[in-house]
């Protein structure tokens, strides 16, 4: 039974919570909004006009940024890298995570802790030995070299995540498949992977993010412009147009848009993945 007093407190509490949530949401959205707004202005007015919605919308900047920055080519490259690295990581880490979780073999713990330990020890400054090695293997300035390197970057975290998930998964379906005569690889492909879809969604977005925003390794390992991903193109773009703010903002918006889109599409799966215990526990 709701008394009048109770109702008021409830409404008050509710609105405070709403205000809190909304204000945080605004601080998240504002910089994004500012970036897009600035992209629509011209160099003369950008610092002077402080209004939220500029008078004249200049859409030229986007077109100009796209052509000048060679974004078409870089875009395709980034897409290629993101898709292949993510695919590679999903396959390789799920194989390994499944083995760590369900199979026995000597040295299992050693290898697992090795992977986990790698997450703790960053390698800033490893670029020289890495480069020398890549060169010896003939992987410099090749797409496959960059892809393999990026796969390595995301491997540890993905293995850890998936193993935790597999640990919590009930084994009945797998047992059933085994009794039916399915090989270990078959179980992995037909049973474990489909069940792990939510966890895989987390890994996909996490790694897609890191590959899409990466530029340090790209600059180092790739020489030809035709192989460069978007962020690398952005750095050059920034250097060439460092004083043309609206153009720069237009370029940054173009660079940020796809990843935001991917997140929007996948966010339901991601929450499911997290809820189902990929992280929890």
């Amino acid at each position: 039974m709701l008394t009048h007093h109770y109702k008021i407190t409830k409404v008050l509490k509710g609105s405070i919570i709403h205000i809190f949530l909304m204000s945080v949401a605004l601080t998240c959205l504002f910089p994004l909004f500012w970036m897009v707004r600035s992209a629509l202005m011209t160099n003369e007015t950008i610092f002077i006009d402080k209004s939220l919605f500029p008078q004249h919308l200049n859409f030229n900047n986007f077109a100009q940024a796209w052509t000048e920055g060679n974004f078409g080519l870089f875009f395709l490259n980034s897409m290629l890298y993101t898709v292949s690295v993510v695919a590679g990581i999903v396959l390789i880490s799920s194989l390994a995570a499944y083995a760590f979780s369900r199979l026995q073999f000597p040295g299992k713990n050693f290898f697992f802790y090795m992977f986990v330990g790698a997450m703790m020890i960053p390698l800033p400054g490893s670029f020289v030995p890495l480069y020398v090695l890549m060169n010896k293997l003939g992987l410099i300035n090749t797409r496959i070299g960059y892809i393999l390197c990026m796969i390595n970057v995301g491997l540890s975290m993905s293995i850890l995540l998936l193993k935790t998930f597999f640990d919590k998964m009930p084994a009945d379906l797998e047992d059933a498949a085994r009794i039916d005569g399915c090989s270990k690889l078959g179980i992995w492909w037909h049973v474990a992977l489909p069940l792990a879809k939510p966890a895989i969604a987390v890994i996909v977005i996490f790694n897609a993010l890191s590959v899409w925003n990466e530029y340090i390794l790209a600059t180092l390992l790739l020489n030809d412009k035709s192989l460069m991903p978007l962020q690398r193109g952005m750095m050059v773009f920034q250097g060439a147009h460092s004083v043309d703010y609206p153009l720069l903002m237009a370029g940054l918006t173009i660079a940020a848009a796809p990843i935001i889109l991917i997140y929007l599409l996948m966010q339901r799966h991601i929450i499911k993945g997290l809820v189902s215990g990929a992280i929890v526990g």
Partner: protein
Amino acid sequence: MKRFLVFALCLTLGLGCAPKKREPNTITLWHWMTDRQEAFEELARRYEEQTQIKVKIEVYAPSDAYSQKIIAAAQSKILPDIYGILDKKEIFASFIESDFVADLTEEFQKDNGQWEQSLFEKALNVNRFSEGNIQNIKPGIYGVPVDVTNIQMLYNKNLLKKAGIQEPPKNFKEFIAAAQALKRVGIPALVSGWGELWMIDCFASNYAFNIMGEEKVIATYRGQVPYTDPDWIKVFNIFKDLTEKGVLVEGIVTKPNKYAEQDFALERAAFAFNGSWCVNVYQDMNPNLEYGVIVPPVINEDLPARVWGGAGSSFVVNNNSSQKEKAIAFLRWLTAAEQQVYLAEETKNLPANKDALSKIPEVLSDFAKAMDKTTHPTIWPYNEFPLVTEKFTKGIQSIIIGEKTPEEVAKEVQDIKEKEMKKSKR
């Protein structure tokens, strides 16, 4: 979904495995100057038309990423045919010692030294190792300057007029007075990219040369004069003075140079301490800017003003390249008058070729007037230890933000200096 993954993986493996063949008539060039890429590419096109030799020009930015790449490529022995070394003379020497750089002295001296004489001596000196150099390199010229630059002070004619100043200041006292006048009408005086340590080094060095003379400065680098010497305290005091009198723009110690350039172009400050490359930047940002160039106003009227200058950017030839001849030929062509004029017009940088001077835009020629007064760390017989320079420049930042006094900084720098001297005697 799964099939898609597998397909994607196979596709990339297939694409990635395509081997990269080296074409016989191609030379590769790596650089970091994003603003000149278009001009370079146009020149490469012209060169290919004329000689059938393809020049692949790749730009890597920012310059830290470029340096990393060069270092990594050097270790793997896959440097391009032509590249630049963005570092101190010692590192240049290291490159030469490790056989990564070709000795170009003979080339320069061919035909009675024709190539050598067409270029500014100061620019060549940056790439030259002279007799008895302390890095023990065989004397000679190891690089080719493609432009020339120097760093001076610029002033905004309109803003100065607003403060009632008709003529730019001729010495430091006048400069401070001008700054005060500007302050009274609410115009910040001096902006510079002092978020970048080398810029501070440049400014301080100019005044050090002016206050105590070149010999004493070099002697300090050799360790014969301590940083606690009164003349050095005078140098540190300049920054204290500038801060206390409100001459410096807000936030100058975290300003990267490109923002400082923006500030001056957008008329947010009356004076700027910047290099001749700024002409291009200002042109892009504000074509109506009315400005002029002066040497930094001297403190000591008895000694000359010195500015940093010499080669802007230089290229070296990879000694292990299979296309050495072609690379050298290209560089020779690039520094010929016609190409230099084109570069000067397109990128508004001072040409390295003397003959091209007559055709450069006006404000650039003001910069060129000071070429005789230029000097540069790369041509000094001794250089300071990098760690000491870091302490020195960061110390000046502390003075500007009011954290430390000149005496304190002098002592700290001297302490590091003594530690480094001890280490190097090992």
